[in-house]
């Protein structure tokens, strides 16, 4: 399940999560939970280098910026076929990372 933080005081959705709302500074935050959330790819990169030895076996790795329909923007693992402008669905994978396809 994927969770997006939502302010019950002013209605703003935000990501990455934090302890208060960036719009109104309220701490009345709740979670919108879904199997997948819709968004659109804004930009993508193909990583050929990682600072972590453990990640190097997975290179090249496609990573993108995805804007959720709810507003916030997230760095996501991206399917290799997804291009900027494409509509995608974002899920949480087995490593608890956002994955967009």
């Amino acid at each position, binding site marked *: 399940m994927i969770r997006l933080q939502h302010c019950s005081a002013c209605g703003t959705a935000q*990501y*990455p*999560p934090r302890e208060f709302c*960036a719009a109104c500074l309220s701490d009345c935050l709740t979670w919108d939970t879904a199997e997948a959330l819709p968004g659109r790819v*804004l*930009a*993508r*990169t*193909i*990583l*050929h*280098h*990682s*600072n*972590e030895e453990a*990640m190097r076996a*997975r*290179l090249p*790795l496609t*990573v*993108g*910026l995805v*804007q959720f329909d709810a507003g916030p*923007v*997230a*760095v*996501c*693992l991206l399917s290799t076929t997804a291009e*900027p402008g494409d509509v995608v669905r974002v899920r949480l994978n087995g*490593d608890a*990372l*956002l994955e967009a396809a």
Partner: protein
Amino acid sequence: MSARGYDNVVLCCPVTEPYVRRSEHGAAWFLAHTLRRLLDAAAIAKSQIDGSCVSSFTLHPDTAVGFIQQAGLSPRFLEWLPMGGACGIIALRRAARAVQAGDADIVACIAGDTANESSFRDLVANFSSFSRDAVYPYGAGGPNASFALIADAYMRATGATREDFGKLAVSQRANAQGNPLALLRTPLTLDQYLAARPIAEPLHLFDCVMPCAGADGFLVMPEARARVLNLPFVRILGAIERHNAFPDDPVQVRGGWAMDRDALWAQAGLEPRDVQCVQTYDDYPVISMLQFEGLGLCAAGEAPAFVRRHDFTIAGSLPHNTGGGQLSMGQAGAAGGYLGLVEAMRQLLGQATARQVPDARHALVSGFGMINYDRGLCTAATVLGRA
């Protein structure tokens, strides 16, 4: 209300503790050597330094106050400015206001870092809470990955090409030929730039700065003090900063300069065409292009055409990053936020030796720092003038 000018306060003594690829020394060693160079350049005693601005990424667990204890200073004004690529201009602004207000007489502004096998990885892995939680786990590409996303969006929005980025990198490498302090002086051709291996597409090897160790510094003091000490000086004609500009832009294709550039040029009483050299914060060439646009050298989205029309070498139509910039000098952590400022001071003081821009009277310097999540947060710029 418009900000007061920077009358009667000046910058002196640009110094550099030479950059090295790796070092066994700690950051404090680099800062202390820079302080020593400032004292030597100004021929003053350590006790005459009564203010300091300090920036470093690798000084931890210490901050500015820990360093000044180690160095035996007792300043009455002290700033810790962990704002990366904007820290030099922000130090200038803080120090100049302190001098104008009488809170300090001679302020030593210093920034530097060490570099070793693990320092860069440790820094990017824990750069901020957002990047630790929501960027680093996605491949651990560090700033290369974040700036690759910005570069990708910028190329799609404006039609910028790798050749445009390459022109800046190649020009800077040519400029570095005249700078013995630059770590990367092997000539670079556009073909070599284009053929380099990919790092985080669309970024390739020569788009990326090389992390290194080193430090830079300068002094801020009343003009009258500089005259008594018989020190050549540079004037601050205008200076701006902005943090977290345009937070609602879904992807960063502009920085905070756009909010403040009119105030900068008005304070300086100049226009972009009045400067003889420009020093941008060049962690990646695309970021220099955002600065050309943001500071009004060209319109938003028009930096590709601007780059195609100008020659950025010392003898060119717009000498840019005249010491080679970070792309050729290396990025010594927080000193990257000082490098352009120190180079502009050398140009205006006539100390730029083989890379001296003829008749340099005014220089534009820009800073950009702290890519905490998906964008750089701190922007700053200053216009400096020959005395």
